[in-house]
């Protein structure tokens, strides 16, 4: 039984991307780095949390790179993995990933009271989906140590950056669509998907996958249960819309102090918008339709 639980726990951490990002091939933590946490008492746990925090941040960034190139592919490795390379700059060059992370972590007015349990659900929640994850055994595992560091982080008073549960959601759906995505290039399962597989992952989110709803709703008492699964439908749409808004907007090159652009935005180059920059007006006044300047009853 214990063995089965450890296995499913390992499967779950692999699916949300944490296991691979932390200790997989190219992972950000080595066993020796995690080791002190294993031996530590409570007072010595913070160093482990300090180690896990950047792992989660990098995992979120990698996952969201996978999202933004889904919105606007370019000539970057993520677009190549997705199978839609483009000869012109895309979302990565447009700074869309920074845009999404900054929005999620600093400006989405999502109450901590919700974000925290959702985040915990996505890391500590039900693990046994019944999906076989081939290649799981190749992930070197120091599961207990990793898990303890994660648990400490989630139980701390620190506000959870929203980009982390969002990345967890995308990665969970990614492995639902393609279990092989637990291994491969990049840090995150979602970034390893093809364009069509990413679309399939969003299809699951939009139709509010029953397993996922159960996983999330179980964390909340009534009357919040329906709210959380309702939120998912909104989140699915919003992630796509914000990723495209960020990819085609000017945020990456906007200087807040001078209120000017440091350079021409990627989206403006693609679309030919305002070839000479902002204007006071245009010479586009043709006249009045049929010469009529006034109507009355």
């Amino acid at each position, binding site marked *: 039984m214990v063995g089965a639980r450890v296995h499913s726990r390992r499967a779950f951490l692999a699916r949300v991307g944490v296991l691979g990002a932390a200790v997989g091939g190219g992972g950000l933590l080595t066993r020796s780095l995690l080791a002190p946490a294993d031996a530590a008492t409570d007072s010595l746990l913070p160093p482990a949390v300090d180690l896990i925090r950047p792992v989660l941040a990098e995992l979120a960034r990698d996952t969201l790179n996978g999202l933004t190139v889904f919105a606007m592919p370019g000539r970057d490795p993520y677009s190549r993995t997705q199978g839609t390379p483009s000869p012109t700059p895309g979302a990565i060059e447009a700074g869309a990933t920074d845009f999404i992370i900054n929005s999620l972590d600093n400006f989405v007015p999502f109450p901590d009271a919700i974000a925290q349990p959702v985040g915990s659900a996505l890391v500590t929640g039900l693990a046994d989906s019944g999906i076989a994850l081939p290649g799981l055994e190749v992930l070197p595992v120091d599961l207990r140590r990793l898990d303890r560091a994660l648990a400490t982080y989630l139980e701390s008073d620190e506000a959870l950056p929203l980009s982390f549960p969002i990345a967890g959601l995308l990665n969970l759906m990614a492995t639902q669509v393609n279990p092989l995505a637990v291994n491969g290039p990049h840090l995150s399962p979602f970034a390893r998907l093809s364009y*069509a597989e990413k679309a399939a992952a969003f299809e699951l989110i939009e139709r509010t996958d029953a397993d996922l709803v159960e996983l999330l709703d179980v964390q909340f008492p009534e009357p919040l249960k329906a709210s959380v699964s309702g939120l998912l439908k909104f989140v699915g749409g919003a992630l796509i819309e914000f990723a495209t808004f960020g990819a085609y907007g000017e945020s990456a090159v906007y200087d807040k102090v001078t209120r000017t652009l440091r350079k021409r935005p990627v989206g403006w180059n693609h679309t030919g918008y305002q070839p000479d920059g902002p204007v006071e007006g245009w010479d586009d006044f*043709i006249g009045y339709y049929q010469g009529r300047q006034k*109507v009355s009853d």
Partner: protein
Amino acid sequence: MRDVIVIGAGGGGPVVAKELAAQGLDVLLLEAGPRHAKPREEWTTFEDDANNPLTGYLRWGPSDRDKPAWYREWPQNSFVWQLSGVGGTTQHFYGNYPRAYPGVFEGYDGPDRNGYDVDHRFPFTYGELVPYFEWVEATMPVMTAAMGHKEQTFFRGAETLGLPVQTTKTTHRPSYRPQENAILQPGGTAGKTADKDLLVYPKATGCTFCGYCFQGCMRPNGAPRNQFAKRSTDNSYVPMALTAEVWSRGGKPVELIADAFVTQVHTEKRHGVLTATGVTWRSGDTEHREDARVVVMSGGCTENPRLWFSSGLPNPNGWVGRGYTDHFFDWVFGVFGDYTGNPKGVGSSARLDYPPYGGLENVGLPPALAAFAGTLSDSGIRGHYKNGRGRTGPWDGPAGRVMGPELKEVLSHGMDRLLSVLVITDDDVEAQNRVTLSALPADENGPIPKVTFKQRQRTARTLRNREFMARKAAELLRGAGAEKVYRIDWAPLILHVQSSMRMGSSEQNSVVDPRGETRAVKGLFIADNSALSNGLGGPNPTLTAQALATRTAEKIFATYFDGDPWVRSSAPVVSTDPRISVRLAQLGL
């Protein structure tokens, strides 16, 4: 003790404030968001800086942009585009001022009379509201819109549909026309040059065709605030309200307080009747309370119900927050081989009305908003999944998001070779589409609202109307010469908001009586889009909401201040009046 406290300086509140200030009443106007008194110092023309709903200067949130926006719960894929700040959503609107269709009013007996939302008509006739339409149209002023290339393209398509051109203010039949816009039309160099040095007031007057309606209007450069082209209330009614003493004999200027979020409407029983007595608002960490003889709620279709519920006011028939209409928009756009003029000029200057189905209007959008508009869908991603929908029709392929490589290809063809058409549905008032209080944690202003739209379970008439108008949009674009036409099947994008505190003749399904006063609380009036009885048949709601607010101001004056009505017996002052400009300069505004 004030005469009147108005909650909200958006599209409706400043109308009541200005009208009652002109009659000499002591009016306090409270706005939850920023003042935006110096747009040239606070605004830019950039989409993310302006319109990012989380961080933009035109967002639903506090003045301090380092703080998060105010969260609202939407339990579906949707987007409720609220704005805080003086001017409310008129800050980003396009100034389109069509009148409501006559068929949505009581007493209408045209041949198509059974085609409308017959159970939720206005409790008076179209003729009753005409003097108020005319009053607002003269105040703004509303003008027939000039034509740019995107209008020319739209008309080229409309001309192929076999419909007449409308040459009246009132819409009598399916027809197309230039918009009647609350936009000062181009004068001098405006619209004739892109040279910054020539586009300075007074060399340029009115609309300069800059294309930045959605980022807030502050042009022509150097014009007094009340001479900016777009007549958002921050450029029209608010300047009039603040200067009432110079243009109205006996007028008393309104006191405007921004960053004042009203959290409570107070009441007490007087002679056994529940009566409004005043409000509490929050400014930063401080709470303030003032009393008034009359309180007017003008916080919009989402905030009025929220404030009602969080104030613990009674809701005997259960209709507070219900019957929310949104014109169930859709988005259809065409890709052209030639220049279309998108996104220059006013956001929209051409429309097609199709009572009793709804209407269409052309819309110019810059790149990020165009990308947003192309990826907000209830029909999945084109070519990948349909989310149970993905309708086919006279557009290319199934409806759905234009995403990733396809979006990049379409937009890289050139912003100025696209033409977008907004599909506006004549949608029914339905009890299920509503505002309630969310079970999610409250914010600093109290319990937050939850806005529920069951878009897939709307009435058969609403769904039919939307399909009908989406087809017309595609046919129009084909007629205009589009090489390819896309239908997005938008998820609810709630920009036109109406009727969540609706006025009606029946006590069974209305919150507000035919005078604009709430049935449950005396001395409490609703004056904004939420008081509209229905979705107007599809016309953009601001003119009708402002006409109704003007009528409500008269009712307040007659009922609580023993005054006489003025709309039928006097002439309005135009909001561009130079006396207002002079006084604004003295006030440093």
